[in-house]
């Protein structure tokens, strides 16, 4: 079944078309953005330098209230090796009709940018959003060449309707998971630790209030709180690994959302300076399995980039 692809950007002409910028050198970015010698600048730069041990570049993400979701979605489409089995199950398309105790709220789901022509209600639209997420994810994973995959991602992440519909699909999956987890708590079943925090807040004691007071505002007037990042990772069965630069030198420098499935859930890497805005991390590429040696036996592919007087070397052997 062909999915109609909305190619036109929905953003005003004056805005940057691309929702995710091209990769740029991490260290150059850090030096440019954080000049000066305040304690904060030094800490953030140090955080970027530690991140640069493992990651080559960073991709800036459009800084609106969707950015945590957008960064995660981009990594999903850009880096994922496979689509999880649960997403491939045809049953999930029934979820928007079947979510218990919040059915009326789902029926009033708010989408950015209004609707496509000739649509049914919110529930049908959410079904389409889930279908779109699944087909785009499959398409991404099946790309043979990285260049092809990059092209596909860039096409989507240009403020297109597809992009925003997939972001709303992610929100729906979070709601669905919250309902499942809350149901489990009521039955006295074991749930991940973060659930206790999620439902401990006065403003979100149950999925209804969680949705009304928090989730429905994501993208519009608010972003994701940290406990909601756990829910996002859990909903997608991905480990969202975040380098939190204002936490450099502490145990929370790298935080995993969630942290209890690191070996078995694929890892998506993001970076944040403040837990508000998230950018994307691009790993050092495995261009080849080995390094070429010159006549005297020295590796020609010495990391890192020559753009700074190096104090830290990483050598590929």
């Amino acid at each position, binding site marked *: 079944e062909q999915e109609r692809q909305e190619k036109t950007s929905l953003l005003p002409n004056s805005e940057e078309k691309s929702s995710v910028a091209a990769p740029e050198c991490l260290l150059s970015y850090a030096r440019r953005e954080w000049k000066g010698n305040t304690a904060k600048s030094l800490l953030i730069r140090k955080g970027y330098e530690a991140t640069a041990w493992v990651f080559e570049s960073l991709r800036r993400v459009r800084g609106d209230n969707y950015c945590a979701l957008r960064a995660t979605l981009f990594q999903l489409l850009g880096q994922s090796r496979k689509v999880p089995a649960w997403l491939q199950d045809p049953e999930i398309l029934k979820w928007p009709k079947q979510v218990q105790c919040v059915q009326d709220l789902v029926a009033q789901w708010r989408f950015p940018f209004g609707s496509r022509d000739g649509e049914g209600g919110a529930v049908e639209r959410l079904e389409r959003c889930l279908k779109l997420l699944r087909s785009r994810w499959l398409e991404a994973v099946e790309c043979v060449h990285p260049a092809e995959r990059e092209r596909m991602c860039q096409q989507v992440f240009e403020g297109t309707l597809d992009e925003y519909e997939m972001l709303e699909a992610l929100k729906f999956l979070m709601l669905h998971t919250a309902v499942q987890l809350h149901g489990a708590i009521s039955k006295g079943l074991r749930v991940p630790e973060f659930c206790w925090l999620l439902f401990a807040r006065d403003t979100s004691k149950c999925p209804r209030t969680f949705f009304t007071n928090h989730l429905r505002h994501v993208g519009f007037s608010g972003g994701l709180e940290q406990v909601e990042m756990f829910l996002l990772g859990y909903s997608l069965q991905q480990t969202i690994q975040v380098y939190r630069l204002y936490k450099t030198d502490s145990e929370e420098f790298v935080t995993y959302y969630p942290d209890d499935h690191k070996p078995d859930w694929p890892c998506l890497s993001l970076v944040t300076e403040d837990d508000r805005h998230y950018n994307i991390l691009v790993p050092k590429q495995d261009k080849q*399995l080995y390094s070429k040696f010159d006549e005297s036996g020295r590796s020609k592919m010495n990391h890192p980039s020559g753009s700074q007087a190096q104090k830290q070397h990483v050598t590929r052997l």
Partner: protein
Amino acid sequence: MSYIPGQPVTAVVQRIEIQKLRDGDNLILGFSIGGGIDQDPGQNPFSEDKTDKGIYVTRVSKGGPADVAGLMTGDKIMQVNGWDMTMVTHDQARKRLTKKNEDVVRLLVTRKSLEDVVRQSMMPH
């Protein structure tokens, strides 16, 4: 959530034998190293002690000789074929690992337990 206070972080010693892969004139190990006494230890995301100037494995190529041998990102290399690696420069470490007349390198590494937040993340996917 990423750190449980009071949990001990224990080290495990592993012996890793890497069969270098020959590709024409090149001998491939399939991993990258960081650190050395001439490097800035404060930037090392894998070390517990930020003054540790040891040699650390920063990345392991998936399916490569080091991966096959069981080397893991974040491992600290203590010895290579009997040579100490705890007090060497970055370049000395490189040389000890890439001797052209050696097809095999036997490493002694220490590896932290799974509570270590940073290193576990670097596993290739």
